[in-house]
């Protein structure tokens, strides 16, 4: 008979296999660098492993995973800003400046411009935009991940799109 521990281990292995790529890209767009994304993804799954036993299944599994990944990314960015002794806003500029020299970025001019535009957004607008535009998640799921109302999300996304459009046309 399979023990509880073995069952959890099996569940975890399956979860890593199913979600590692999706979560990686979600994290990568937030932290930009591959090495940082790898660190955050590892930490995300370590946290998932520690808390899997307590996951009650009230929310969908992927909503729970995205929430952990988002929080881990934000924590990482805050720590990085503190380590570099710069503000959160200055860190966004720092990420944009390093994009061109990143060996794991080969986007064309339009893609580079889009990434730069995204990095000019305030953190909350950036998260909403990434989850809606790239992950194509519905508002009700995003509201669970970011723990905010759908109305607020819609407003944030609307502002984000306007700012990005303005940035791309002006640069």
């Amino acid at each position, binding site marked *: 008979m399979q023990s509880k521990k073995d069952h959890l281990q099996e569940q975890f*292995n399956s979860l890593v296999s199913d979600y590692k*790529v999706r979560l990686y*890209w979600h994290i990568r767009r937030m932290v930009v660098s591959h090495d940082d994304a790898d660190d955050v993804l*590892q930490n995300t799954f370590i946290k998932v492993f520690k808390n899997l036993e307590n996951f009650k299944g009230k929310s969908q599994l992927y909503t729970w995973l995205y929430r952990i990944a988002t929080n881990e990314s934000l924590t990482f960015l805050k720590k990085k800003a503190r380590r570099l002794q710069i503000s959160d806003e200055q860190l966004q500029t720092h990420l944009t400046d390093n994009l061109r020299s990143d060996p794991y*970025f080969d*986007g*064309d001019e339009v893609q580079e411009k889009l990434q730069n535009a995204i990095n000019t957004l305030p953190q909350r607008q950036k998260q909403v935009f990434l989850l809606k535009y790239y992950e194509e998640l519905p508002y009700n799921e995003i509201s669970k991940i970011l723990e905010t109302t759908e109305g607020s999300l819609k407003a944030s996304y609307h502002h984000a799109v306007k700012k990005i459009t303005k940035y791309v046309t002006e640069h």
Partner: protein
Amino acid sequence: MKKNWESYSDSGFKVPETYFDTFEEHLKENLRLVDMAAHKEDGFSVPQGYFESLDTRIKNKKVMILWPLNKRFITGALAAAAAALILVLFLWNPAPQENTFENLSASTLHDYLADEGIQEFMTEDDLTKIEDNNSIFQSFTMSDDLLFEMIDDQVLEDELVPEISDK
């Protein structure tokens, strides 16, 4: 439309070629490190059931074996301390000299004689001898008149009157 996550890099970002293939392996190593850190593994182990039976083994320990040793030790230590104290007192505080008139200071004798009213019956010569630290009782001579003055009148009556009347 379902996304093809594996090749999802339409934003210009790339990943190292075998990154996702080896991800689980790296994650497993990290989880092991985290687990080791949580349990502070250092290679030491204890016999099976050691902690479960520890309380009982401590309670059953015969403490009587240690007591005579301690008692002997304490008794010996006390005896040694007492002997050392006696030795120190003996060396540090030797027996006091015998109190004699020769040992008394002249001022002490003067004070005594004055307080007792004796000094006024002494001659200048006697007082000089005291100041020269000579024993007054070796050289002190008392005249008969002085002697009679010092002896209580009642004593004289009690002792001498019957003797006279007998004659």
